């Protein structure tokens, strides 16, 4: 089971990394989402995998799942939604404004040097 879990995270990371390195905004967003899955699963995994253990306190039960990573991942999922939403709007805004959805602005000419004081 652990092997399946780890390999799934690995593949999600690999897919996410590959897509994040694409040139257009949409695949980058999808890539970030995949990375979010991977990271959330990884964080969840730090509590170690357990099956069929209760997450709710009950009388007479001693073994529980680890609640702490779950709580952290829960907020992480919600926050990654917020982040995805912001990135989507940024991508959309830049496409609408410039009719171009590439993510690179390319090497620019350096900004004007401040007045050449060194000669003074």
């Amino acid at each position, binding site marked *: *089971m652990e092997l399946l879990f780890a390999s799934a995270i690995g593949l999600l*990371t690999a897919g996410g990394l590959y897509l994040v*390195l*694409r040139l257009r905004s949409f*695949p980058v967003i999808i890539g970030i989402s995949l990375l979010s899955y991977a990271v959330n699963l990884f964080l969840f995994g730090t509590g*170690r995998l357990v099956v069929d253990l209760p997450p709710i306190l009950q009388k007479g039960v001693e073994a529980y799942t680890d609640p*702490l990573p779950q709580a952290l991942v829960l907020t992480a999922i*919600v926050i990654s939604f917020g982040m995805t939403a912001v990135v989507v709007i940024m991508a959309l805004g830049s496409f609408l404004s410039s*009719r171009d959805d590439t993510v690179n602005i390319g090497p620019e000419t350096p900004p004007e040097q401040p007045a050449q004081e060194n000669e003074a």
Partner: protein
Amino acid sequence: MDNAAGFLPIIAALPFLGALFPGLMIQAGRNTCAAFTAAPTILALTLLLLCAPAVMRGEVLTFGIDWLPSLGLNVNFMLDGLGLLFAGMILGIGLLIILYARFYLSREDPMGQFYTYLLLFQGAMVGIVLSDNILLLLIFWELTSLSSFLLIGYWKHLPEGRQGARMALTVTGLGGLAMIAGMLILGNIAGSYDLSVILTQKDAIQASPLYLPALILILLGCFTKSAQFPFHFWLPHAMAAPTPVSAYLHSATMVKAGLFLMARMWPVLAGTPEWFWIVASTGLITMVMAAKIALFKDDLKALLAFSTVSHLGLITMLLGLGTKAAAMVAVFHIINHATFKAALFMTAGIVDHEAHTRDIKRLGGLRHLMPITFTIATIAALSMAGIPPFNGFLSKEMMLEEVAHTHWIGPAWMMGAVATLGALFSVAYSFRYIAHVFLGPKRSDYPAKPHDPGFGMWAAPAFLTVLVILIGLMPMTFAGELVRVAAQAVTQSEPTVKIYHWHGLVPAFWMSVIAVIGGAVLLRLHAPLMRLWNATPRPEAKVMFDAVTRAATALSTALTDGVHNGALTRNGAIFAVVVIAAGVLGYLGGGMAAPTREMLPVTLVPAIGWLLLMLATICLVAFHRNRFLALVLMGIVGLIVSMGFVYLSAPDLALTQISVEVVTIILLLLALNFLPRETPAESSVARRMRDAGIAVVGGIAVAGLTYAILLRDFAAESISVFHLANSYKGGGGTNVVNVILVDFRGFDTYGEIIVLGIAALVIFALTETVLKGPGGRWLSQWKADRYPEAGDRHPLMMVVATRVMMPIALMVGAYIFLRGHNQPGGGFIAGLIVAIAFLMQYMASGFAWAESRQRVTYHATIGVGVLIASVTGIGAWLAGRPFLTSDYGYLHFPPIEEFEWATAMAFDTGVFLTVVGAVMLALNSLSSMARRAGETVNVTPMDINPALSDAPGEKEA
């Protein structure tokens, strides 16, 4: 003693507090402004004088507050003789400078700013000399670099001022960085960062193998600050500052900070051959070299600047000799130099102010026109030359006496000879200051008609000159005691202070005679020598400095441009590679424990889920160019992840993941409406191979890490045990995950909902901006004609179904919310479910239609949510508990069952409202783009008109 020690932090704080006022008080006039600057200085000086009797008795006043004891950083202040001497000079001369600047600055200069900077600087300097903790001292040290930058660059319109300020900041700042490293080493050796402890650790420090590195690093800081060769070049360039600044920084304060530190560290660092060779040689070279340059400077302030460098070298050399007697002389010369040099700078300022030039070639004969200034300048300059009976003579004689008995390089008389040469140049430039400015015939071509200034302007230098004479005539009365306690602090032993004028026909006497006669001769020969000086090429420090800064700038530009050229892909690739490399490095560097956990067995259903996930991810990468397909595949991945959470005993996560999944997909679908449907293939094969390589290596690394973690138990006991044990007892809930969110880690959640709310507002703002710009104009002409659309925009079945589902979904939301504390659920999930319930209405009948039926704005929902969470948190204060401490209890209404209440429930309500508001605001913003693109508002819930077969029967609203 205890009472007086309490003054120390106040003395250090007063200038900083006072710095708040000049900027305001300038509205009330320049005199008021100056008065409000002088007030904190006078107050601080008074408090210092109240401390003085105890220090004079030989006590060391200390005052300490623990600040960050774990780092060894404490707000410890200490006042001993050395501190008293410096603090007195800083505040006393500071007061004179405030007076002088009041009359020096013109009406056009922003005086409030000037005084604010000056007080900031004064506070930083006082902080340095009063600090007992070297980390605290370093903070003040850096503050002097920063505030002196502001002062030197005060005339912002002058390029010289800006360059001089930058150069001073660069040089002293870099030295300060080196010194931080040195101080940390020193603190490590001594086992404490408190000076009072360090000063007792001489043997341990000098025996340490790290003594030399620490010494060099600390001396770098001191030498840069005190403008010692080869870092002396910044000081003359700092002369572009207004003269009061020069007089203050370069007589009593900034450049003396380096000397102060060398004196402060003298008990532990001095006395070794390393110390002697580095410090004494640097001082001697600086002294002679700068004195020679000073002779050939035509600018009055440049002359004084180089003479300052020279005298700083003299004092450095004395400290470097490492003998107690020499250290005593150094202390004495610090006092003398401060008095005559501040006075000289002020007279230079007066000449500049009245004659409108400080070029010596254009001056001369001023003694008739400015008799008062002439008198002051002459006395101060003679003292600088070391002519009896002024105070400069006394310390110079004692210096020569010390040097005459010291063996440096070469023959035994070598050091004495070199020092005499330095004194000779010193006499020459001092005489020149008198002869070429004030003596000689009156000229007719002064840029302005020179005359003595008003009393306000010459009062300060005159006062200093009186000190010069008094100390010169009666040294033991006026300076003896101060020198004694200060020297006692430097040498940590009782010194014998005997200052007198006539030593007999000792070597120092003859060296002095040679210096005075030689200096006079040199001045005679000045004109031909000047021609020779101008004819010989010499290295120009500024050119070298500029070249070095340019090279450094070019290097950093090349580096940042190489890494960060605006290409996100490049950044991402570099980031990924660096992170992977760091991970690999860590993996190679440390061992790994053997696995301690058994693997869980694999059953059929999870195996199928895994297979689907892998397939979906692979397909997603393979077919990512088809964006709709990619979205569908991403949905599959999300669903399987949710199911995985169910299987792995995390129902809360599963609920959250699946609702977030729905919302995310809807969001992306809405966005895709306006984005291209396909991603073009444009990167080269090599590029793709590179990315695939990075991705595969990264994936394997993460998989390996995960696998390694999963097979091993916790290294230390998990704090989850605490949460499990206290969830019901302390938080009143059996769903531990929810109790952690709203109670144990409530502060985290509080921050999270605020972030979420901000994200939603950012989305709203971005949308508004885009719609107002060219994007909005383009959208209004946008035609969705590229793809066929369904004839019924809002299908009947969907409308009916969502209407029926709305109350059910809200009910589910309420149920999930209420059970959250004890069963899977809670504010986050309930918020998402309710948001989805609303979203279904939006999808069924259009955003605008649904929105017009909505009474509360989403902004308000977010705000109210955060507010409720805050009020709940603050409520705990009323009960005298920390922020967000929760409470709970049970209510019993007879017909109903026992009912639990918890303040955490109110907090969860805040979470719920914020999530609903944020999600809805985000999607609503996106939909506003659709409306701009011409989507019309329905009049009826279903806008399908079966009578029309060719087009959806919209009616314009």
